[in-house]
């Protein structure tokens, strides 16, 4: 808890960051208290199959982390609580913005990479993944370098922590 409180405070002198950190600390404590043995068993058995329990746990994790992000991003505690109150009690209209060409292009680039990663994790985990051929290594290094320069966060204009 101390670690996460300090991690929250590091982001800024605002109660919202402290609460964000505290929530993550709390989630970690609850997880270790209730599920540590189960998780250790799964790791030992190398279980990575998508069971119903696992899907449920993924959904819970996603939602509680998203909840914590509300505190991180809102300017004041009052705003964060009002935001959560509205989620629970104010039923506004569901609005899905239409996909524009930029979003479609981004998905076209990101989805294949995601699928590639999932295929690798499913079928190639544990196998020797090291690239051996020098020319292949060079291609890999060049591609990574180019991606870093053309798509990386290179200036403070994009760096989300610039305000901290």
């Amino acid at each position: 808890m101390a670690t996460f409180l300090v991690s929250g405070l590091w982001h800024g002198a605002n109660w919202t960051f402290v609460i964000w950190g505290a929530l993550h600390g709390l989630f970690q404590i609850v997880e270790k208290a209730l599920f540590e043995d189960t998780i250790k068993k799964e790791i030992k058995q190398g279980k990575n199959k998508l069971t119903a329990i696992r899907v449920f746990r993924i959904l819970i994790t996603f939602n509680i982390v998203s909840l914590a992000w509300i505190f991180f991003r809102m300017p004041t505690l009052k705003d964060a609580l009002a935001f959560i109150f509205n989620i629970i009690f104010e039923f506004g209209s569901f609005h899905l913005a239409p996909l524009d060409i930029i979003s479609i292009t981004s998905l076209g680039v990101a989805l294949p990479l995601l699928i590639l990663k999932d295929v690798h994790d499913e079928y190639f985990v544990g196998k020797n993944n090291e690239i051996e051929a020098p020319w292949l290594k060079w291609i890999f290094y060049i591609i990574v370098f180019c991606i870093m320069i053309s798509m990386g966060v290179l200036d403070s204009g994009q760096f989300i922590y610039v305000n901290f």
Partner: protein
Amino acid sequence: MKKFILRILMFAGLIAAIDFIFGNAMNYMHDHSKGGGMAKRLYMAREAEDEIMLFGSSRMNHHYNPMILEDSLGLTCFNAGQDGNGIIMSYGFLEMMLKRYKPSLIVYDLSEFDFTVGDNMKYISLLKPYYSEPSIQEIITDISPMDKYKMMCSMYKYNSLVVRILGSYISSSSEYQKGYLPLGGTMDYDVDDPVENAPMMDSVKVKYLRKFVELCKAKDVELVFSLSPRYKAKDSSYYKSVKEMILKMNVPFLDNYSNPVFCNKRDLFQDQIHMNSKGADEYTRYLVPYLREYIKCDKE
């Protein structure tokens, strides 16, 4: 050691070659953008000859309907507003436009991006594709002196723009209507009255505000500053310092920030800062008689 240095040189050479090819490909695709924001900005920089030009941030982009101004004032109009951007980017595009032609009227919708302290690096990213223009080089190196060297690398020049350029090159679909982007939603929640603390002025942004005004005066272009409505705004005290500065430069200022005709009507807003299309149409129509005063006589 010799082998290592040789490998480094080979790597650098390959990167330089790829950068050259990448740069040419990006330049081509950028200059042939068909849709989206890229095409809008390309039009602004290279083709626009509209008699009324509208500049500003998202509040300009979503609040001013150029078709209404065209119908009412009998002059062509284009909305050059850009979400998340302000005076620094606008000044760059103004320079490129005024090199080619002289509009009859420029309306600038003021926002916090035009004068408040904040990181200025983000305002030059959309100017980088136009780095070949001397005026743009000056702006970029003023904000970020090291960019003089970094911009030699095309991959850096087009950093974070690759997907946008690709998308704009592939598809001509665009939600823009003469640069204007109408917002469809309506606020279905209420908010407290906004609390706006007195802002700290950013000297760089203020410099570009002055340059914007001076450039319009030098080219004899009529310029009007405007503050469009904000939901539940009680007054425009947040803008007091910058408004005084602009008025001292003898530039007209239309202040509708807390105009009760709009500010208390939730159905005219998509969120507390942005009007929806219904609000934009009503507000634009409201502005017409005021803007008519500033159109140069020889165009009436």
